[in-house]
């Protein structure tokens, strides 16, 4: 631990070339927090007074209990490089002191939004991969997210200790495993070719891959070993590094390097010969307590042990020896300092991703140059609950200029449109704060390139915002973050005591602020709904809601509510007609299912209301087989004008049709939001207006007549086209050893899931299973799975697609029919569906 005062820390913050902002990302349980801990233990900056406090990043009690990280936590590290190790450093620097702002992020997929928020304010990422489990689904997701944000990655192959102690693999086999892990990661990174960011792939021989054992606190990069051997072989370090990886073999018998194995028993791969084997030897010697052998070896390596440490035995001795020989902190921190960009460097290319406005204006330039004297540009990525209940710190990164206590800032919210006054406030920052471990220290100001927390803005910032100086009226905001998960699991909450309602309302508001992903809404029936990314996420949110934001007032939480979608199976069996209330207007319509993939294309925004009609008709005709002219006759999308349903005009030569278009569209927006079955949203239905008969007088074909009629005819056409329910389906990825497979299949079968991919991880006894699982069945899935596999399987669920339920909801007693009546009951609707005859009229 490095003991600092706030003033000392503040001094380094001015050196923009000596700052590294980085996040630690990985799959759940690959050892992020443990690794971070070992870094913090060595280099963490803590306030002088609280020195000795431990466990820095898992600050919440529930995090410690569950052994997972829930909220991303920022921590600052200080590292002083030696002149010698910096001699190869080409980048700009001022002195040898470095400040590393590190953010430990959660690995569970439910908390991906935290990762997104962390990535926005960092420039580099340390990707942690378990050397046995390899690149997993969440590794891939977060890596893609990082690269999308133009975050430069470095990799560490973690849990090396497992190779030596648990698996006892020999050098060559271990090399192959590591090689595969690195390759897998590189495959993902290679897809993000980016001329500005350069080559983002990682290479051990270039020092961008580390090998670590977070639990034991040691790590190395090939640089460490290259330094050791360079002198011995009389070559320079970079040359030596190349020899230590890849197809380079050394035969101590002949003392010759070859690029192919000569086949002789003594000829071994450079990595095995010079890195793996020595470590293995040391570890084995320690574990076997062969101290007489150990001390000379250590002396040769230049490792000096303290006398009291020499009495340690077995594992403890090994740990201590390895930590002294190859300290994790210096290997990893040096890698970060060497290979991750400083804010000054990173903002040069990140400005394109970040700034919404023109890239040549003063703000873009200030961000690009990381100019501390330029206008303030600050992005608030999350709100952190403060110790006094109900208040929040606005946590973010200064991209240019400096923010100081008392500064009047212009707050641009997510809905701010330049030139308008919407979502815009001018307020002053009460205090600027930096984190020193768990303690916050007020500082006068914070210059660009650093992270900062601000007090006094929480009333005006909802989740994120862009801050600039008061006078900078023409500044554009920084682009909003894109999340990779969506809130699909919903529960209804109500307070046990009716008079607690104001508390609940207040609590929900605060909850919505504190978590980037959670959504608090209300059902038509007046129930408060909390929606989260997954069961675990929701559980944590509700706990926060009750304990922190409602002061412990009791709440009643309903069973999880899953939203469905309504769709149709076939084209309507006949053209249906509805008459307006005055019987003078008639609308004829048919419904049909959309072509496969079209609804997804609308979801993704490839097809939408604002397309150029020519482009749209090209996509529709080429990919979905639409008639070119028809593609131009799409009236609208819905619900909410962008949803995956549409109305197409198929009529020919109808008088006054343009007059009622708005009314039909209004009716459609309404109807597609609340389908005829259970008032769930519609999906993938195309409504074709076949014919329209209108009254000759405009007054009799107004909105009042047409809107309700359009709604009725849409319902009628939906009901005549074999309506079906769509249920949301998760993609589940499970990693487990072979003996657990039986249990996994059993649980999946019981939960209506089906496995579509089962793959053994090469070189491991682990299997990777991918399956689809209906969301409605997923509640309690992980605990059932854990029980059935004695804790060996751990699932990760992400929403994947909508799946049609085969049973007919119109048939009472069928599975879908039962669901429909359950939903109707929950919503307080009439239990019986409105019959077709209510919507369709006879001529």
């Amino acid at each position: 631990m490095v003991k600092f005062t706030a003033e000392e820390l503040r001094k380094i913050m001015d050196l923009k070339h000596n700052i590294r902002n980085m996040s630690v990302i990985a799959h759940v349980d690959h050892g992020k927090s443990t690794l971070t801990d070992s870094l913090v233990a060595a280099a963490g900056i803590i306030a002088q007074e609280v020195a000795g406090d431990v466990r820095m990043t898992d600050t919440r009690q529930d995090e410690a209990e569950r052994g997972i990280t829930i909220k991303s936590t920022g921590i600052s590290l200080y590292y002083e490089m030696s002149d010698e190790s910096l001699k190869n450093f080409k980048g700009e620097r001022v002195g040898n002191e470095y400040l590393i702002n590190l953010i430990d992020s959660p690995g569970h997929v439910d908390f991906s939004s935290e990762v997104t928020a962390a990535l926005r304010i960092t420039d580099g990422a340390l990707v942690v991969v378990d050397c046995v489990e390899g690149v997993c689904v969440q590794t891939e997701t977060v890596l893609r997210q990082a690269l999308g944000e133009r975050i430069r990655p470095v990799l560490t192959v973690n849990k090396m200790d497992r190779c030596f102690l648990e698996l006892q693999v020999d050098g060559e086999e271990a090399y192959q495993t590591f090689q595969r892990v690195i390759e897998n990661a590189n495959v993902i990174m290679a897809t993000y070719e980016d001329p500005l960011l350069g080559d983002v792939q990682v290479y051990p021989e270039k020092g961008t891959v580390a090998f670590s054992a977070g639990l034991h606190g040691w790590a190395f990069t090939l640089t460490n070993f290259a330094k050791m051997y360079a002198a011995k072989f009389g070559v320079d370090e970079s040359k030596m590094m190349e020899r230590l990886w890849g197809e380079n073999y050394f035969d101590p018998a002949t003392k010759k390097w070859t690029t192919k194995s000569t086949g002789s028993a003594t000829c071994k791969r450079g990595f095995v010969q010079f890195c793996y084997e020595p470590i293995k030897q040391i570890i084995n010697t320690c574990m076997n307590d062969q101290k007489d052998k150990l001390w000379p070896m250590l002396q040769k390596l230049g490792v000096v042990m303290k006398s009291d440490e020499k009495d340690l035995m077995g594992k403890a001795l090994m740990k201590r020896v390895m930590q002294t020989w190859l300290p994790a902190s210096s290997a990893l921190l040096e890698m970060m300092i060497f290979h991750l960009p400083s804010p000054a460097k990173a903002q040069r290319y990140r400005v394109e991703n970040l700034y919404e406005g023109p890239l040549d204006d003063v703000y873009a330039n200030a961000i690009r140059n990381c100019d501390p004297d330029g206008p303030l540009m600050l992005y608030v990525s999350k709100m952190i609950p403060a110790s006094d209940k109900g208040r929040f710190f606005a946590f973010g990164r200064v991209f240019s200029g400096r923010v100081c206590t008392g500064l009047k800032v212009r707050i641009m919210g997510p809905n701010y449109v330049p030139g308008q006054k919407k979502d815009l406030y001018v307020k002053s920052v009460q205090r600027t704060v930096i984190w020193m471990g768990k303690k916050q220290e007020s500082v006068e100001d914070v210059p660009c390139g650093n992270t900062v927390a601000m007090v006094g803005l929480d009333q005006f910032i909802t989740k994120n915002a862009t801050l600039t100086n008061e006078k900078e009226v023409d500044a554009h905001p920084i682009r909003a973050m894109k999340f990779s998960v969506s809130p699909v699991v919903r529960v209804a909450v109500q307070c046990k005591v009716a008079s607690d309602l104001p508390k609940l309302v207040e609590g929900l508001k605060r909850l919505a602020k504190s978590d980037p992903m959670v959504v608090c809404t209300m059902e038509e029936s007046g129930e408060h709904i909390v929606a989260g990314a997954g069961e675990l996420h929701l559980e944590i949110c509700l706990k926060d809601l009750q304990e922190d934001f409602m002061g412990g007032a009791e709440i009643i939480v309903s069973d999880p509510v899953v939203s469905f979608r309504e769709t149709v199976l076939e084209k309507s069996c006949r053209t249906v007609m509805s008459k307006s209330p005055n019987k003078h207007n008639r609308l004829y319509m048919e419904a049909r299912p959309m072509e496969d993939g079209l609804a997804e294309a609308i979801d993704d925004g490839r097809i939408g209301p604002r397309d150029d009609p020519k482009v749209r008709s090209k996509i529709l005709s080429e990919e979905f087989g639409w008639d070119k002219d028809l593609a131009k006759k799409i009236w609208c999308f819905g619900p909410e004008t962008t949803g995956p349903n549409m109305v197409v005009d198929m009529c020919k030569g109808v008088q006054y049709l343009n007059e009622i278009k708005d009314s039909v569209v209004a009716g459609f927006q309404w109807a597609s939001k609340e389908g005829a079955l259970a008032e769930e949203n519609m999906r993938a239905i195309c409504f074709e207006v076949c014919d329209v008969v209108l009254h000759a007088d405009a007054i009799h074909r107004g909105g009042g007549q047409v809107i309700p009629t359009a709604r009725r005819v849409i319902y009628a056409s939906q009901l005549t086209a074999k309506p079906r329910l769509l249920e949301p389906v998760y993609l589940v990825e499970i990693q487990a050893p072979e003996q657990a497979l039986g249990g996994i299949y059993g649980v999946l079968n019981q939960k209506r899931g089906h496995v579509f991919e089962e793959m053994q991880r090469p070189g491991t006894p682990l299997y990777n299973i991918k399956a689809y699982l209906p969301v409605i069945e997923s509640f309690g899935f992980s605990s059932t799975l854990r029980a059935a596999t004695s804790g060996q399987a751990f699932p990760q669920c992400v929403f994947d697609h909508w799946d049609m339920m085969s049973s007919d909801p119109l048939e009472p007693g069928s599975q879908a029919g039962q669901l429909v009546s359950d939903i109707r009951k929950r919503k307080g609707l009439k239990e019986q569906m409105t019959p077709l005859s209510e919507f369709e009229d006879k001529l």
Partner: protein
Amino acid sequence: MDFESKYEISSTVDFIRGRTFTRVALQFPDELLKDSPLVAKALRSELGKAVRLYVMADAAYGSCCVDEIGASHVDAECVVHYGHACMSRTSTLPAKFVFGKASIDVKDCAKSLSHCLSSFNKPIMVLYGLEYAHALVNLKAEVAESLLSSHSNSSLKISYAEVVGTVIYPSVDHLTEKAQVSSQYDSLTKTRITVGGDEREIKSGTYYGLGGLSWNIPTGHKIEDYLLFWIGPENTAFTNIMLTFNNCKIIRYDADKKCLLEHLSNQTRILRRRYYLVEKAKDANIVGILVGTLGVAGYLHIIEQMKELIKSAGKKSYTLVMGRPNPAKLANFPECDIFVSVSCAQTALLDSKDFLAPVITPFEAVLAFTRGRQWTGEYVVNFQDLIASIGSEVNEGTEEARFSFIKGGYVEDIKPQENDKEEEGSLALAAATDKALSLQNQDPTSILFKRNATSGTMFFAARTYQGLNMQYENPAPQSYVIGRSGRAAGYLDEERKAEDLPGAVE
């Protein structure tokens, strides 16, 4: 039941004679209209030729209110109202109410009542539909008898609400009087929870009045301690009781089916739904004020108040008179995000899935449009009670963005001053241009279908079809042609055509 007593002919005659009215309007709801000739005949035979009687039916608004406009068409001096009534105060004419007499099995009702008393162990307040008022005396006697015989716990009491009276006179200067009375209430009831209806400090306790009933709660008791026992069908009068006394346990005795019903789930459901509508109203930009009455005292005042309230909330309001609202009428105003219905307590609660935009009551509007005001559980159904309370609201003046539970996030409301305070001076033109430019930016579909319009003109401008356009290419006036004549249901020339070609028109 005989006709004479059902329609209270004799008391009606006394009422008319007593005030020497000469022109009397008889107002019948649709279901009683068939009896109107008999009633009129019976009255005429009693009153003679001197008094002119007019039968009115099919009121433009709810049939529970006195149709004063209809009555003034015939210059009536008073109205006799038959059937179910909301007992709202009239503004110009005196009215006599004849509730009718619904049949009830008094013995069974008394049995249920004493059963409730023993099983819930709470004092009971008996409330009833006005059509059961006639049986109250018998019921009281019956219950007293059964209590005596069963020697039940004497500490628990059954109290009965009384009918306020069957005649309502308009107050001369209603509004000022009302204001005075209300200010008196304020000072008196400050320390107590104000619950619905007419509440007045009386020496012996708290006075409640709702929907034509009134009752007292002795000092030291709270209405929440009582079990409310409602006799009558599940109608709007009952819903009002449920909403107003949402903290009380309510049991309904259905006189037709002779059974006891608990409506707890229904009660919370309706309340929650109203709560949702309030939240929804907060998001509205354009509010339609539906004038649902032209008779209930103080309606003009509350409309003015609503307009001011909506304006101060930064929203736009339009006042619409459309009689009884139905889906087709409301859908003629697709620009309105929400409607506030100013009408008597029993017709204001409209909740239909068929309406394009929800309809809320003035009380809910006050909740929704007053910043920082939270729903504490009280509910006021009569807008007269609101008139007093609105003025005393304190605006918290927080600048924090409002959290919308409908959109699931924080939203920013339009600032009220933005609409009316125009920037003065040299920058005025620039500001105006700025606004004009930003208007163009917005996507018309989002204005039309996502409720983003802030005024009717904005909505109109976004419409794809805006009605007939002037033709500027050919400025010369066109020669006139003879238009059609007749009614829209069938013009004269259309009828002729239909005769010519039978079967061509369906």
